């Protein structure tokens, strides 16, 4: 059976070039980078090189890049670290209602255990934050603004440069979770003028278990994981050298291939959307209608009268991997907070599927997937008692 992976926003396959670069760090360069002899020094060299590669992808200085275990850790570190370091100044954090759980749940934690006030900015129906809302929300007590660069579900590209400028004018630190944006749009931290930026390797064809935080030079952020002197005394623990080296290689490839990757993703995404419209009726696109303002590979589509998890399961049986915003999606009964925040009606949210294409997706994959999808939708609509006449 053909296998078609259309969930590149969940994770990406690790590229061969990346794996080949990593392997020596499990073998001849296995040493602890803190050790002062051959194998340790070779490992250390790998870290130095990787830090440069990641810095180059975002226009940073390597001294501003700190490796973490994942994007979530980077998000946790910034929020908790700023809350601690700035407690003399204030206790107010501003974020949005559509952030990843790594931000939302950390905010809830800070609220509950550290007395932090959190403002969750509303977004419009396409998921955009209104800069005027940010202006209005900043108070004398605001210590941090954290807004994602690209939303993981509906692909909205937020106006980060404009938002960061507003924060800066009011003397407030600005963080952006760029996990979905990295490698999917040009990022220049100096041009954006952000203070912190979170990244993850496995979304850009690198390994899982490694992420990084960009921290602008000169900004005080207390250590999050305490112990040894790794990561310039900011993040203790023996480095995941192979992971870091893999992240570095993936970042280098992402930088070199950026234009081609974006072009390829956009073409296939457009092709898929056109094909879905041609073959299936009663579909709705969630997120920005202007495809230039969304993640290049993202489609978020609701299918009337049927439910997302059953679409996912039948597609899986046909070899097609996707994800869903439905309440009944595996593992949780929580509906998509992103779709709810963009005022998508509940019955529509429950019939939502996210598709993301990437570097290994081909036109034939899309043909196969949409063919399978149209059969699945047809089958489930025949089983469904909902016809739209009831107002759903």
């Amino acid at each position: 059976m053909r296998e078609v992976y259309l969930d590149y926003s969940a994770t990406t396959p690790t590229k061969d070039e990346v794996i080949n670069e990593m392997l020596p760090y499990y073998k001849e360069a296995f040493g602890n980078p803190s050790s002062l002899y051959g194998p340790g020094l070779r490992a250390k060299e790998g870290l130095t090189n990787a830090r440069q590669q990641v810095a180059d992808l975002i226009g940073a200085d390597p001294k501003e890049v700190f490796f973490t275990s994942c994007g979530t850790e980077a998000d946790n570190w910034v929020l908790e670290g700023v809350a601690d370091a700035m407690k003399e100044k204030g206790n107010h954090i501003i974020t949005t209602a559509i952030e990843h759980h790594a931000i939302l749940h950390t905010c809830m934690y800070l609220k509950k255990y550290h007395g932090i006030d959190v403002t969750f900015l509303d977004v419009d129906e396409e998921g955009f934050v209104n800069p005027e809302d940010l202006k209005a929300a900043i108070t004398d007590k605001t210590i941090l603004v954290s807004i994602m660069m690209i939303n993981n579900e509906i692909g909205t590209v937020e106006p980060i440069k404009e938002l960061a400028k507003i924060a800066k004018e009011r003397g407030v630190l600005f963080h952006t979770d760029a996990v979905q944006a990295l490698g999917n749009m040009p990022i220049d931290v100096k041009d954006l003028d952000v203070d912190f930026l979170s990244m993850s390797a496995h979304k850009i064809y690198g390994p899982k278990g490694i992420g990084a935080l960009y921290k602008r030079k000169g900004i005080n952020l207390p250590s999050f994981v305490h112990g040894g002197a790794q990561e310039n005394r900011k993040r203790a623990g023996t480095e995941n050298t192979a992971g870091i080296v893999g992240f570095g290689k993936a970042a280098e490839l992402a930088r070199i291939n950026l234009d081609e990757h974006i072009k390829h993703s956009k073409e296939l995404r457009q092709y898929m959307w056109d094909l879905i419209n041609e073959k299936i009726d009663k579909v709705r696109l969630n997120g920005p209608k202007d495809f230039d303002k969304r993640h290049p590979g993202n489609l978020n589509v609701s299918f009337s009268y049927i439910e997302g998890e059953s679409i996912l399961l039948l597609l899986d049986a046909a070899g097609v991997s996707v994800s869903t915003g439905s309440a009944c999606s595996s593992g949780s009964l929580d509906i998509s907070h992103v779709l709810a925040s963009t005022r998508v009606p509940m019955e529509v949210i429950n019939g939502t599927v996210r598709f993301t294409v990437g570097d290994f997706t081909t036109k034939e994959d899309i043909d196969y997937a949409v063919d399978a999808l149209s059969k699945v939708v047809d089958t489930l609509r025949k089983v469904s008692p909902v016809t739209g006449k009831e107002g759903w």
Partner: protein
Amino acid sequence: MGLYNDKVMDHFMNPHNVGEIENPSGKGIYGSPVCGDMMQVTIDVDDKDVITDAKFKTYGCGSAIASSSMATDMIIGMTVDEALEVSNKKIVEELGGLPAIKIHCSVLAEHAIKNAIWDYAEKSGKHYKGLEGYNPTEDADEDDHHDIPEED
């Protein structure tokens, strides 16, 4: 193994008794797409009070469709009184179990069947012990649904 066992997957992938009986003895609907699942059941009942046929249409996840398929299988051939004894627990047992967070999906089938029998009882003027105190218009859904634990 995936989220569901093989039996559940089989009932989901190849559901039994899909459809709608024309001029049924009774028809019941439960849930709505807003809640995430909805089931319609139509039944035929003969003069010996035996359910001779049952068909369903369901909007919902894998376990909702599988429970609908299994539940309609179970009630065909039963008397109305026996069918009123079919609880969601029995449906889940017959399916060989469902993930804990999916148990509520089987409640859908129990309620939809009850509603179909209630409709039959109304039309035929019959009285069943299993329907005493039962009100199909009451939203009994609250307890079955979406008990999301609070985040810390």
